[in-house]
């Protein structure tokens, strides 16, 4: 790219991202002509608000609006942010056996979840690696609602469908519905609850982190989960797509402009500050939930019984210790980015960065990556290679920014 245009590389990235998602689309989605990108129900709304649209996982999504990514990231933690995450895939599993069915595919103790509560979990493969991470909610014993990553939609749905067919052929009662008629919005930050309270009669002070409710918000029936991807208190709201724009407008108006439309650029900075993994970077097919630091997500009963794909590998790692571990870093110099090598103080390679960047709230470089077990302790000094030059860094405790989840005292 020496002396080449700024756009040449951008073009090749676009092509790669667009190609990764070439499948038949559901009726409610629109096509962006020429570029083959899907549009959410808020596409025109984003553009009208100054959204800079970029291709992401086959969709045209706002990376930022008129304010800078840095300002946007800071504003989320001071006031609040509204994200369009309708590119993510929401689905419901129903039937008498939906709980045991899902347990064959994820590490969570789904049976043990109280109705109306959910959790982060991991879909595993036969080798104990992660197919995707997902927030699952047991609505009732016969209804599970879950959200999977946009970039993994096709892979996850094919995986679930294949296993569902096999499960049903043995007499299991499970069916699914993919919520393409709905759009997911995420409202995060200190103003999330006060603002949303203006739009619903239900008492949100009784809805704690990880809990779920189906309720009327701004005149339409929404699925509400008190969860998010920023570390702040907040909600993910699944609204019928024909009401998505009205809901977005209402939220922004009720906050008197303090809650801002926020794009994927800030969303990535926020999740990194909260120490949350991004599937595709910090978690992949060959990385197990144990290595990724998600042992807490493997239910106790599941550790004893197994029964999910790759259980033998994962249970062994729980016994013996994994060979690599996900850790967080601070570093000096240029921000460490994905694939930067991590060395010990003597220059021996001990790991690799999987995500990194500049933290607008902490005003320093933060990163996540994997290092050999034994080298993963808090405080360990490392050298991170950026463009071939080593820069000082150290392993630090997680998360970088304290979480503010709404939990009962």
């Amino acid at each position, binding site marked *: 790219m020496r002396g080449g245009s700024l756009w040449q590389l951008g073009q090749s990235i676009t092509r790669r991202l667009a190609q990764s998602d070439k499948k038949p689309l559901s009726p409610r989605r629109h096509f962006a002509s020429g570029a083959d990108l899907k549009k959410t129900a808020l596409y025109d709304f984003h553009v009208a608000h100054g959204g800079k649209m970029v291709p992401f996982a086959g969709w045209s999504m706002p990376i930022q609006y008129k304010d800078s990514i840095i300002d946007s990231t800071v504003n989320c933690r001071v006031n609040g942010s509204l994200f369009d995450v309708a590119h993510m895939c929401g689905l419901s599993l129903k039937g008498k056996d939906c709980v045991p069915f899902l347990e064959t595919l994820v590490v969570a103790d789904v049976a043990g979840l109280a109705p109306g509560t959910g959790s982060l979990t991991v879909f595993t493969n036969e080798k104990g690696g992660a197919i995707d991470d997902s927030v699952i909610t047991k609505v009732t014993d016969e209804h599970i609602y879950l959200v999977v990553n946009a*970039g993994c939609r096709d892979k996850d749905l094919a995986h679930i469908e294949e296993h569902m067919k096999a499960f049903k052929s043995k007499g299991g009662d499970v069916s699914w519905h993919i919520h393409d008629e709905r759009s997911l919005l995420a409202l995060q930050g200190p103003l999330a609850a006060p603002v949303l309270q203006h739009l619903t009669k239900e008492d949100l002070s009784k809805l704690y982190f990880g809990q779920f409710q189906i309720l009327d918000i701004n005149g339409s029936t929404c699925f509400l989960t008190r969860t998010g991807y920023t570390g702040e208190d907040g909600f993910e709201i699944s609204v019928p797509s024909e009401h998505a724009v009205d809901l977005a407008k209402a939220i922004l108006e009720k906050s008197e402009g303090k809650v801002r439309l926020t794009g994927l650029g800030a969303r990535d900075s926020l999740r990194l500050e909260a120490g949350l993994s991004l599937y595709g970077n910090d978690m992949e097919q060959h990385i197990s939930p144990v290595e990724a630091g998600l042992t807490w997500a493997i239910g106790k009963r599941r550790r004893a019984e197994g029964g999910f794909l790759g259980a033998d590998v994962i249970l062994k790692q729980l016994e013996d210790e994994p060979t690599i571990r996900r850790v967080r870093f601070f570093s000096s110099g240029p921000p460490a980015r994905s694939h930067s090598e991590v060395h010990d103080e003597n220059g021996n390679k001990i790991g690799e960065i999987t995500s990194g960047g500049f933290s607008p709230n902490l005003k320093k470089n933060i990163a996540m990556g994997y290092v050999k077990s034994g080298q993963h302790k808090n405080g360990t000094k490392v050298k991170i290679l950026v463009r071939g030059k080593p820069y000082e860094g150290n392993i630090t405790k997680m998360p970088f920014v304290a979480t503010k989840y709404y939990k009962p005292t």
Partner: protein
Amino acid sequence: MALRMWASSTANALKLSSSASKSHLLPAFSISRCFSSGLKYANSHEWVKHEGSVATIGISDHAQDHLGEVVFVELPEEKSSVSKEKNFGAVESVKATSEIISPISGEVIEVNTKLADSPGLINSSPYEEGWMIKVKPSNPAELESLMGPKEYTKFCEEEDAAH
């Protein structure tokens, strides 16, 4: 300047796609935005201001706009040499890394140390306070092959229209 993107699912080219978003951008791409008079430009989006025996180098407004907020700048030392079309440093924005390519050859006689604490000067003042290095050109004839302001503006427009 070559834009090197890191393989992260969310690190995308700060690429503007639809005509709708372009109309939001069009006022920004007026003549005055793309250049500052008296400067020469490389097709890798660096500018050079040649005054007497000193040439000052930085990146253009067009470049900083597409890069986004700069968080870190890597510059060479004083007394080191730069060569035409070879990279001499890097600019890190929130989402991307970009190499800076020298439009001319020469010896670095001064480096803008303000950029260490205030890398954002490249965004707010790309032609004035955001200057990067001052060079004693070893071959002034190299300046002749660079673009003038009108040519550069046209170059930017063609590049943007091409995607």
